[in-house]
């Protein structure tokens, strides 16, 4: 299953619901486009919901890092929502849990944006 993305606005926060696989190729380019579109529309607070993402490879991890730095460099915030155990493990292995702010509850995540 390739990556499917759906954007929705909750106040001034763009929630990107992702489902499928974030892997080199279509998956990573779709995610890059979604972040670029959000920033292009002036939305600098992004909550990336990975609840339906079941697979991320190292290229997908790299794309998450790229999204984080792109949003941060534009003065925005990017946070992650609903990581399953496998993705949590990936962030542990790569030490990226020290970089990303992750939430399990969407309403808590929404309130955490400043």
């Amino acid at each position, binding site marked *: 299953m390739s990556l499917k993305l759906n954007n929705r606005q909750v106040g001034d926060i763009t929630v990107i619901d992702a489902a499928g696989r974030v*892997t080199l190729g279509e998956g990573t380019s779709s995610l890059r486009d979604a972040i670029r579109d959000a920033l292009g529309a002036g939305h600098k607070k992004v909550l990336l919901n990975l609840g339906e993402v079941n*697979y991320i*490879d*190292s*290229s997908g991890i790299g794309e998450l*890092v790229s999204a984080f730095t792109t949003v941060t460099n534009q003065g925005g915030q990017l946070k992650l929502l609903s990581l399953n155990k496998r993705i949590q493990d990936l962030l542990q*292995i790569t030490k990226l849990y020290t970089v990303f702010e992750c939430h399990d509850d969407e309403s808590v995540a929404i309130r955490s944006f400043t």
Partner: protein
Amino acid sequence: MGNLAAEPGSGGSRLNAVYNSELESVDAAETAVTDMAKAAGFDEDDLHKIGIALREAMVNAVVHGNQYNAAKKVRMDAWLDNGALHVVIADEGKGFEVTNVPDPLAQENLLKESGRGILLMQAFVDEFQVRRLKPNGTEVTMVKYLASR
């Protein structure tokens, strides 16, 4: 995509394949090996780890090794032996030294977009080895043991 063949008389427990240097080959190799591992009794968590490790090795071979060069191939040999899955993947690229790969866990590298493939392979299989081939190429060998072995 390439050629794939199960060894005759082995009950499909050995795969030899030659893949073109394209991203479709990565998916094909991942599917072939995880199907083989599933049939051998690896559980869902291990199948996920095998899939990621296989994928990382194939991406390295296709993208970094052969650099999508249509004239270069990726060879994969996978077999089951005494409760262990063995996979060998070789490309025809310039080759590299693992010791020259920057540590992706170093603070200064955490925000780099690439360079985590070897880390994930090492984390997800039980044995991992990289060998430079003569005159050209890199060969990655991975072994994953059945938990119930």
